[in-house]
């Protein structure tokens, strides 16, 4: 079996596993609908014309493109929770014993973790794109590919944290705090122009900013993007590479030594 095939077999397992968490999938979908149909629409009515102009004409469109990235992020980090569930049931030991290399295992899990949330968020993303309208399909395709890369990086990030922190409670609390910071210190919900200067620096190197702005660029909302598309694409590639590498290294060091025990 080729290395690529092994990566896919591992990824396939995570995708199938995700589809079995029906409760989670339904709840996340409800969360998404409420964010768009309640929060998005109401807040849109609150903003004056000058604010609408600063975000490319419609705050609702700006927000909808951003919230899909927040959704993609929060769905992808779920792979970390899977690792704790597996550790509780001893499945970590099993996965370490199967005939795939550690690199193939972590790559497969990152691909699976990213792809499954990408597939799950996909229909919602299409709905958002329908609302916004697509001006350049090729541009959109490039943006979608890089969003997959972003999801792949978030999966690596979640795996890295999950294998670094042995307690699932601590992981849960930490992910809550990171979620609050990483979403709010990015351009997913509001443009960088309205942020105080001391927040801007963080927002400009935040992977969620890269992903949200690149998606807006792909959806034809270029004027709303704070980061140039090339820089955003570079940021996404760097984020994915760093956390895939860290995931592989830490997975081997923390788990193989019997560290999950």
């Amino acid at each position, binding site marked *: 079996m080729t290395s690529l095939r092994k990566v896919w077999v591992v990824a396939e397992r995570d995708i199938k*596993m995700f589809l079995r968490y029906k409760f989670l999938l339904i709840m996340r979908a409800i969360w998404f609908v409420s964010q768009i149909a309640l929060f998005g629409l109401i807040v849109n009515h609150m903003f004056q014309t000058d604010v609408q102009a600063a975000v490319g004409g419609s705050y609702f469109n700006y927000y909808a493109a951003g919230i899909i990235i927040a959704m993609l992020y929060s769905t992808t980090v779920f792979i970390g929770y899977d690792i704790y569930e597996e550790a509780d049931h001893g499945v970590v030991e099993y996965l370490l014993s199967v005939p795939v290399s550690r690199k193939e295992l972590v790559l497969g899990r990152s691909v699976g973790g990213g792809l499954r949330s990408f597939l799950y968020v996909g229909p919602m993303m299409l709905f958002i794109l329908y609302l916004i309208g697509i001006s350049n399909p090729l541009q959109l395709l490039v943006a979608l590919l890089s969003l997959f890369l972003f999801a792949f990086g978030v999966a690596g990030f979640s795996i890295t944290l999950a294998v670094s922190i042995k307690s699932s409670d601590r992981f849960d609390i930490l992910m809550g705090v990171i979620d609050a910071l990483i979403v709010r210190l990015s351009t997913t919900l509001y443009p960088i122009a309205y942020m105080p200067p001391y927040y801007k620096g963080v927002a400009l190197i935040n992977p969620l900013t890269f992903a949200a702005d690149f998606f807006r660029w792909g959806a034809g909302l270029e004027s709303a993007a704070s980061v140039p598309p090339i820089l955003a694409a570079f940021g996404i590639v760097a984020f994915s590479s760093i956390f895939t590498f860290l995931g592989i290294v830490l997975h081997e060091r923390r788990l193989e030594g019997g560290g999950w025990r």
Partner: protein
Amino acid sequence: MAPIIRIVNLTKKFGDFTAVDHLNLEVEEGEILGILGPNGAGKTTTLLMLTTVIKPTEGTAYIGSYDVTKEPDKARTLVGMAFQEPKLLWVDSPWDILNWHAKVCGLTPDERRKRVRWVLEELELWNDRFKSVHAFSGGMRKRVEIAKILIQRPKIAIVDEPTAQVDVVGKHRIWNMLRDLRYEGSTILLATNELYEADALSDRVAIMHKGKLLVCDEPKKLKDSIPGGDVVEITLEKDASDKVLEELKEIPRVANVLAIKQNHLKIYLNQAEEVLPKITEFFMRMNVQVRSIRMSEPSLDDVFAHYTGLTIEEAQRE
């Protein structure tokens, strides 16, 4: 022929606790090697190091020609393991678990379909193949775990207490399937604390206690090696004092006396037919009434007791 597994000074420490202590052992291709010992003897830790799930603190093991510390990925291609505790998520079904396992082990779709069906039918899991393992009994979960190895048919099959929680009929079925696996070319490492299982299945038995290998040989040779080839079990009406036990050991041809309880003694001796009358006479003289006498062949428990001074049951409680 070079051994298919060569364990060299294999050691694993968890903090100050030494789980496996400088283990040296060789396993020949095609044999079933039983690793016998009470819980905590270091059996599972040894197996986890051989499957590269955990890294040794010191020493190494060679799986085929691959060093588990240097070429773990290659070593894993030769090994398959059925764990002591079934490794299953509650949302899984046997069908999903086994199909994925077959896939990750590189079986073609055709082989996969045939083998998964065959094993599920043999282990009487076919009708429950789509049910969540959450609803399964301990024995059913154990059968799903053992099914992985039967589907994989690895060069080296490592099975950790394969029949724990399995009923008697199921035990025999699994034993037969393990024997078949060996005839098809697998070498089998069987960790167990069940004496009968080790005796019935193994070509050789390695006895471990407190992380150390005590002895390794064919079951018959191990039993023959105990000084005092006959075993007499005597139950007394009242507890025997230490003085009685000491004097009992002084009777010619009595090799050893093990007090399972103070009124239940296991006496290892030579030429039982000649010594037995002397023993009964001794108890009469000591005014201790004998309730029952039973002669038996030495078992692996006796071998374990010979090396540790404890029965496996006692060692388990320690």
